[in-house]
């Protein structure tokens, strides 16, 4: 049962990572290393920026 649970948790984590749920955590980790003295963007601002960046720089989707 534990193996199954662990497997499902891992699968869930994987799907979330592929979908991009962890983007803010990734940004925080990056920020903590490169700009330890400045406060990072708040979460809401970060997601807004991320969406708006796609407006400025669209990504292709294949057929």
């Amino acid at each position: 049962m534990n193996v199954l649970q662990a497997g499902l948790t891992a699968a869930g984590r994987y799907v979330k990572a592929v979908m991009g749920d962890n983007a803010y955590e990734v940004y925080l980790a990056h920020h903590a290393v490169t700009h330890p003295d400045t406060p990072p963007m708040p979460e809401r601002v970060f997601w807004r920026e991320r969406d708006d960046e796609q407006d400025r720089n669209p990504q292709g989707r294949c057929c």
Partner: protein
Amino acid sequence: MSYDARHEKDSAVPASTTAATIEQDPTLPPVAVPDDEREAEERHWTPAKIAIWAAIALLGGVAWVMLAVVRGETVNAIWFVFAAVCTYLIAYRFYSKFIERAITRPDDRRATPAEYNANGKDYVPTDRRVLFGHHFAAIAGAGPLVGPVLAAQMGYLPGTLWIIVGVILAGAVQDYLVLFFSTRRGGRSLGQMARDQLGRVGGTAAILATLVIMVIIVAILALVVVNALGESPWGVFSVAMTIPIALFMGVYLRFLRPGKITEVSIIGFVLLMAAIIGGGMVADTEWGAAAFTLDRTTIAWGIIIYGFIAAILPVWLLLAPRDYLSTFMKIGTIFMLAAAIIFVRPEISVPAFSEFAGNPAGGPVVPGSLFPFLFVTIACGALSGFHALIASGTTPKLLEKERQARFIGYGGMLMESFVAIMALVAAISIDRGLYFAMNVSAANTGGTIEGAVAFVNSLGLTGVNLTPELLAETAKNVGEESIVSRTGGAPTLAVGLAHIMQSFIGGTAMMSFWYHFAIMFEALFILTAVDAGTRVARFMLQDTLGNVIPRFRDASWTVGAWICTAIMVAAWGAILIMGVTDPLGGINTLFPLFGIANQLLAAIALAVCLAIVADRGYFKYLWVVALPLAFATVVTVTASLYKIFSPVPAVGYWAQNAAFRNALEQGEESFGTAPTRAAMEAVVRNTFVQGTLSILFVTLTVIVIGIAVYRTIRAFQNGGGINTEDPIVPSRIFAGSGIWSSKAEKRIQKEWDALPVERRRVKARHE
């Protein structure tokens, strides 16, 4: 410095001789597995390893024998799965490894752009397995689901062989090389790489070709959706519902719970299922049927207007949430389809080679002889040039280590090829008479059951005896008024999928659900590709116009963005309307153009790779690129020449054009499948546009390939050429390279895990 000046200056310097100069930070654990250790592990063959690979080879061999040699009355679908998967495994382990040793020669001591440009947003070193999912979601869409269905008219074997052999020698090679070379060049796009490698003329031709090709691809994908939704109130309702669902998801993510992407995707998925079920109920009511039964021209206009609005709305409102939904569905449905085929294992009664395989005029679904037209009908899944646009520019900015490019690039494309094989299996698992009744254009069937039965039975196919009852019953089972002449591949795949899924879950009662589920996900993939394609094409146009009127480069200039969006939408919209109203049937005349366009792009990408490999001085292994390039060039140029010069009206655009012009001059009131003079004029107009596009494509491609070959010969004479790689930056991170970590990788990873957290990811350069 100009391109040519650089070329002269560096022409005698062989590229990548600097590997020895990379110095790693001595205070960190190793950033790469030492070469000798990795070599020893790769070349060490334990008995267990030998036994596994022997078993894979044996199983694959048996499967191929069953498909290609035994060819009994029926063949079980499971052999397709075994033949494909075993061949992929062997190609991945041995051929892509060979390419890695011979051509790409990755060096994990070099930082990738994701590492040295890391900004926490678009340049992010990403876990390789996660990136595999990202990359796959970006490259795979409706393409591999459509082409194999149309090619099934030739029998199962030609398509199967081309999908599997094509991917390992051409498609996956292209994806891998473009990904790797772009990574070495800061993640530059294909167009930029073409300019750097081939000079101004070659670069401009490549960018122009990309733009035109993008337009034609978007138009034909949209045509597939229009054909699937025409006269189908259920389909129109449920696909239309994706718009409010996406808007809701967009608002939810923007204002309610930012960042909860998986959560909102699950909510969206549930709503989507409700929309499919609701669509059935709505279509059953009188008002629902009246409101949502739309003819194809109306739907085409709907998609054009929608395409324009979607491209100018902010991304967060419509495009991004629909993209999430599409990714979510993609992963889910592909696993579902694979599971269903493995559990149900349908028996296939389609012959290996059909009556049309040897016919120079081809079959009624797509015209033209097997060579070259099979190879352009199936583009996605075997060799897709469009992938070069994702493999350059997008994915390289996320790639953690150079050595992972093989898993992501080559492996990702193998996965798409497997999707194509499953689509083929689904399409050939349905009755053959039914297949032709669905895929022959209304110009031949008259769109009626009687017409379809008469036409299909007149084809003289062995073992085919189509009855009106079968057509009526299938239509009823899938919840449609009629399934005659539902061309474009998507409805056939949907019937095939419904057929397989209903014996897996739900029985006949569920068939209509599965059918509309399949139509829904194909429409979702395609509409996402249409939106994204319009936006990317608009940006390319803005960039190009910016050379003349600089203001167009300013992305915040709304009027400029709107003008460029309108131009791009008008361009693909015109081709779409042309396809929808075409008296000759539309998809069967236009689909070859889609495949040709896609593979011409592949030829351009491979030509750039050829020039790069030559400039690096690896002439002994140039054939790895030259072989698929030569094949793609021969196929696409031959197909284009057929389309331009063939005297057979069904094949040659200009022959058709001349025949109809002639008939008009003779004062005829109807000709061929065109019932009126207006329809005849439409054919003249359409064939003129199609013929002109064919000439444009082939001219641009010949220019690019010609320049690449010239540069390659120059490089050969000089023993190498310019080095267009970015300067080396030593890496300061470690990660494994394949799907599973090797022994050495695990050992090094342990050393990294023992480091204090803040020291693990030290950036080489500040953003």
